[in-house]
């Protein structure tokens, strides 16, 4: 090693300079690590100490495998600006909108009904928290807070709408938003032609919107199409065959189909005899009887709760034959109505017997004169046709371990998402949570387009045919020669006819 003689103070260290000076090396290394990056201005030293600090304070497991991830996260945090230039602008939390909507529901009802008669609607079957528990045991349901909010919003609805009873029908899942659906019976004075009305909303806390009534034509078309719900009631339905209406109408039609197919009750819960009927019910009966006159076989269209109902034993309800469960909503005929309506009536009654549907304008061309007959009300499920070897219903017990407290859950296979549960036959509830489409075993095939129509009827006038030969024309002329003696006239006529032929 060559040393400079001038550097006197270091001569002493010459012997030790062979050994690395720890302090100096550390300083050099530190200096190197503290070099700022020319792009970001960061340096490795600070970064490493920050990362190590984060790791030591959080003490994550197996950190060596995710070290890069930690390092990157620390770097990412550095990009955030420390100074908030929008300090004065308050951005409400995301939950604000919902909180704002839902708060009015928590307020105590201020104007209570004055008399007992004014009691609003039958809410006895709407203890949503209890139902929520049952739903959960059956393997479906909504979050508890939604159920509770739903109950509050139902209570609000019955104050403004003339409903006699109300029930949570279910939820239809859409692409962008979902629909909560309530089923309500209107009060007698409002109930002129309709049995049930349905209210929907996208989010609990929104206004409930009453769905328009369904027409038989909409029902018929709804059977031929398959379209996802978007969540907007005004959405146009683009299908073939053309659906008469928007998504609100389609939703109503699907609800009617699902209800007709899947609203079931334990055997004996409903009966045809009014269970202690008041005057109105009898009147209703009479009215129906009048309406149904001259419509062939009399069909019962109404059923009442059986006061002397005794729940069937759980074992029977669990029976796979499903003969202890009955439909309590009428089947929808291919015509799109629950009761047969003669499209070409001899006597114009002008009214339908069953009041579910409104008057429809279109002419019933497809329906034949033979009345369509569906299964009568309160038919056991065992009579249900199975579709393409798919049994219509599956029944389960909610718990095999505790059968004495378990629920019986009936699941529809034709309408995936439709359930009915019962607590040993006592409480039962029908619920639908799904996309609102029927099961199709073979895949859906849209209706083929009709054949191209003809402008005119095919007949001999427009058919192309071979021109007659000269010999034939001559023969024709001779055959058609007048038998009368005046020869000149005959010839003239013949000529005329010949001309026509040529033309």
């Amino acid at each position, binding site marked *: 090693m060559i040393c400079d003689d001038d550097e006197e103070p270091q001569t002493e260290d010459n012997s030790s300079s062979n050994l690395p000076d720890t302090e100096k090396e550390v300083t050099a290394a530190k200096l190197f690590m503290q070099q700022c990056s020319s792009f970001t201005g960061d340096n490795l030293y600070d970064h490493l100490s920050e990362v190590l600090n984060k790791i030591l304070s959080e003490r994550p497991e197996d950190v060596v495998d*995710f070290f890069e991830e930690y390092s990157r996260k620390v770097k990412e945090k550095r990009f955030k600006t420390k100074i908030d230039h929008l300090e004065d602008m308050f951005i409400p939390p995301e939950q604000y909108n919902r909180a704002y909507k839902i708060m009015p529901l928590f307020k105590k009802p201020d104007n209570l009904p004055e008399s007992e008669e004014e009691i609003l609607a039958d809410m006895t079957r709407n203890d949503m928290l209890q139902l929520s528990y049952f739903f959960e045991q059956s*393997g479906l349901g909504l*979050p*508890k807070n939604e159920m509770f909010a739903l109950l509050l919003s139902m209570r609000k609805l019955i104050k403004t709408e003339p409903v006699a009873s109300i029930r949570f029908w279910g939820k239809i899942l859409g692409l962008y938003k979902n629909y909560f659906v309530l089923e309500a019976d209107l009060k007698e004075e409002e109930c002129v032609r309709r049995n049930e009305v349905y209210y929907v909303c996208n989010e609990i806390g929104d206004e409930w919107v009453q769905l328009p009534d369904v027409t038989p034509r909409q029902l018929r078309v709804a059977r031929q199409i398959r*379209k996802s719900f978007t969540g907007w009631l005004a959405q146009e339905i683009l299908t073939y065959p053309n659906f008469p209406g928007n998504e609100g109408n389609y939703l109503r039609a699907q609800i009617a189909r699902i209800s007709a197919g899947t609203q079931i009750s334990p055997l004996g819960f409903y009966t045809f005899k009014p269970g202690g009927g008041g005057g109105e019910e009898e009147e209703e009966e009479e009215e129906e009887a009048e309406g149904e006159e001259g419509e062939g076989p009399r069909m019962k269209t109404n059923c009442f709760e059986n006061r002397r109902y005794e729940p069937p034993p759980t074992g029977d309800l669990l029976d796979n034959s499903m003969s202890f469960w009955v439909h309590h909503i009428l089947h929808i005929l291919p015509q799109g109505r629950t009761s047969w309506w003669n499209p070409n009536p001899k006597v114009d009654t002008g009214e339908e017997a069953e009041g579910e549907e409104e008057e429809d304008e279109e002419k019933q061309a497809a329906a034949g004169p033979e009345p369509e007959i569906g299964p009568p009300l309160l038919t056991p499920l065992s009579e249900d046709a199975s579709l393409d070897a798919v049994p219509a219903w599956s029944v389960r017990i909610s718990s095999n371990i505790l059968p004495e407290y378990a629920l019986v859950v009936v699941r529809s296979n034709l309408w995936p998402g439709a359930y009915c549960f019962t607590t040993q036959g006592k409480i039962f509830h029908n619920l639908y949570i799904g996309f609102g489409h029927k099961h199709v075993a073979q895949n859906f095939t849209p209706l083929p387009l009709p054949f191209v129509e003809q402008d005119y009827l095919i007949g001999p006038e427009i058919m192309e045919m071979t021109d007659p030969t000269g010999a034939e024309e001559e023969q024709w002329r001779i055959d058609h020669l007048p038998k009368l003696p005046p020869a000149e006239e005959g010839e003239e006529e013949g000529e005329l006819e010949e001309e026509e032929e040529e033309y």
Partner: protein
Amino acid sequence: MNLNSLANSLDTLGHYGLVISTDEAMILTNSLLLLQTESHSCNIFFWGKIYGAGNDYYIAFGYVKDAIKGKIYYYSTDCMDWGLLPKPTEAAKSLLPLCTTKFEGNPRTIIDVLIDQEDSSLGMKFDKPTVRKLKEEDRLSATVHSISNEATIVPRGALFLRTDGVIVENKSFEGLSPLDSQELASYLHYSPPQRKWNTNLLTRADYNYALDFLDTIDMDLPEGCWTVQIRGAGSISIVSSLYWPGLALYHIIGTPNYGCVYFGDGKKSLDLPFMLNPL
């Protein structure tokens, strides 16, 4: 779906309408823990339920080392006794689209699959309508695997590709941000990637191969076959497949909690192109 989250499915999957009842959750958690120990799995998950006419199948899967390549499926009809789900046979895979019946609920059932004369999906020609036999267990296996390959998903960042090529659960996953959770590109297929390795990296600004090694669902066709809904006042995102109705992923935004389950009858909705609205 993680075993720990089975118990409170009402507040997570409830937004989609599916719930695992208390009864089921208890039995599943415990029986799956036993299964995990017996099979020496690193982690075990509840996969979902396939409805049968007479009985339902419960499906679970676990892995020993690699979270994707090492998935092993188990099934049970009573939640208690678990059996190994066989690997899907080629025959079962090709016959699967032709099965129109519902699952029976008994894995030993043999079903008849009718092949139409004109059907060319099997790559063979038939002179007359042919009937092929298919065991329900094989059909179940083919169904589960095709759902897993096509539709099970995870939020981006939940899985981590280690430098040695092993895929593990990311322990530093902190959840998606509220904005990211609304994007389909933040959800990845939970199956071996099919696209080129750099497809994701080229489409993202904040790419990171350790996280973006799987296929995103935003490129699946037809556009609109996945839906994302933010529910619970912005606290949870629900991603659901329309090809496999009944498949849903929940992710509590900003937390590492997520879970993907399938509850359905194992039928692919091929009608989807008719059901979507033109864009």
